[in-house]
């Protein structure tokens, strides 16, 4: 396996030190890393799963609208960022570890290295229950 670029390595290091849930993907959307706080939401341990291909982790992270209907991929902030290479932001519902539906808000932004190398994206999310 070739080594990752410095920008992705530093992105992982940064995310690893945060208490807000986050994950890191490559340009194809393959999951490269998720942090401890994200482990608590996904119910998975990165040390056990390692990275995951996009087809695999799309079955774990199943975003829905308020009525429980699956959202199309193109409406998700991370997918939008991967397609457009610009930051995106939005809210959705997912099932947490306890099978409870929770509302989360996601901010995704592209990772573009010097001078203009597109390398992947980073997404952070948090619980955002409506008042």
């Amino acid at each position, binding site marked *: *396996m*070739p*080594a990752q670029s410095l920008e992705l390595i530093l992105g992982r290091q940064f995310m690893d030190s945060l208490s807000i849930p986050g994950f890191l993907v490559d340009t194809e959307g393959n999951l490269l890393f998720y942090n401890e706080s994200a482990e608590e939401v996904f119910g998975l341990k990165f040390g056990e799963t390692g990275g995951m291909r996009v087809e695999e982790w799309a079955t774990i992270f199943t975003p829905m609208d308020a009525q429980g209907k699956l959202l199309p991929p193109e409406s998700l902030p991370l997918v939008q960022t991967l397609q457009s290479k610009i930051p995106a932001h939005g809210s959705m519902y997912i099932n947490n570890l306890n099978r409870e539906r929770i509302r989360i808000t996601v901010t995704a932004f592209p990772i573009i290295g*010097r*001078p203009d190398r597109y390398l992947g994206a980073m997404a952070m999310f948090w619980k955002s229950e409506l008042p």
Partner: protein
Amino acid sequence: MKVKVWGCRGSLPAPGPENISYGGNTSCLEIRDGDTLLVLDAGSGIQRLGRFLDKKVKVIHILLTHLHIDHTMGLGFFAPLYNPDVEVHLYGPSSSSESLLNRIRKYFSAPLFPVRLADLPNHPVIHELDQSEFEIGPFRIKSEFICHPGPTLGYRIQHGANVLAYMPDHELQLGSANFPLDPEWTSGFEIAVKADLLFHDGAYSFSQYEQKVGWGHSAVRDTIQFAQLCQVKKLSIFHHEPTNTDEQLDEILRRNVEGKTFGFEIEMCKEGSVYEF
């Protein structure tokens, strides 16, 4: 290829009787094969290289890892830059905001230096690099961004079956996840893997590093672990902290290798050392 060390001190030249063995000039390596000359970094050591250079050399390729002052301070004192018969190529890292030419111009301008780049008889040919692969004569060169403040490259130089890797400024602890266990997530791994000779930052003892986390340099302990991870044949520890004397450098190395067995050679780099492959 023949490799000569003209400077391996870090941060600031450190002349003085306490630094006779390892030398006081900052980063500069000469790599030769026949008429092809590569110079890695233009620290204060490049001044002596310029003085003793074979007069027959007409083309010189200077590869800068980055533009911190200890890696560029010798440029203006490199005699071949003032010789109209010599063509100098300058390579260095791209940045997102400013061209390499403009960043080098800052050095060749007031109040830092009296001679402007445009005053030189031949304007150096500028080459911006990022994750690049290219050839100069018999050398195949690969560059990659590595973990150090500001745009900074590591170089992997292949000559026939031999590989030299050069990362004089590199902070391993910040640029690696699960260090030193996961090569896929270790900055600089692709530059150093299975190199015959690795010149790598080992500026500090571990206790010195603990006071300077984030400054862009590595502890000797980490440098040795990185060399082990990369399965190099020989490690030459580079970028000695300017306040570390010969005696202290010997002691730092002794503490890190005593009673341990490594599958490769380890040394503290010495100014004046020559390696032939």
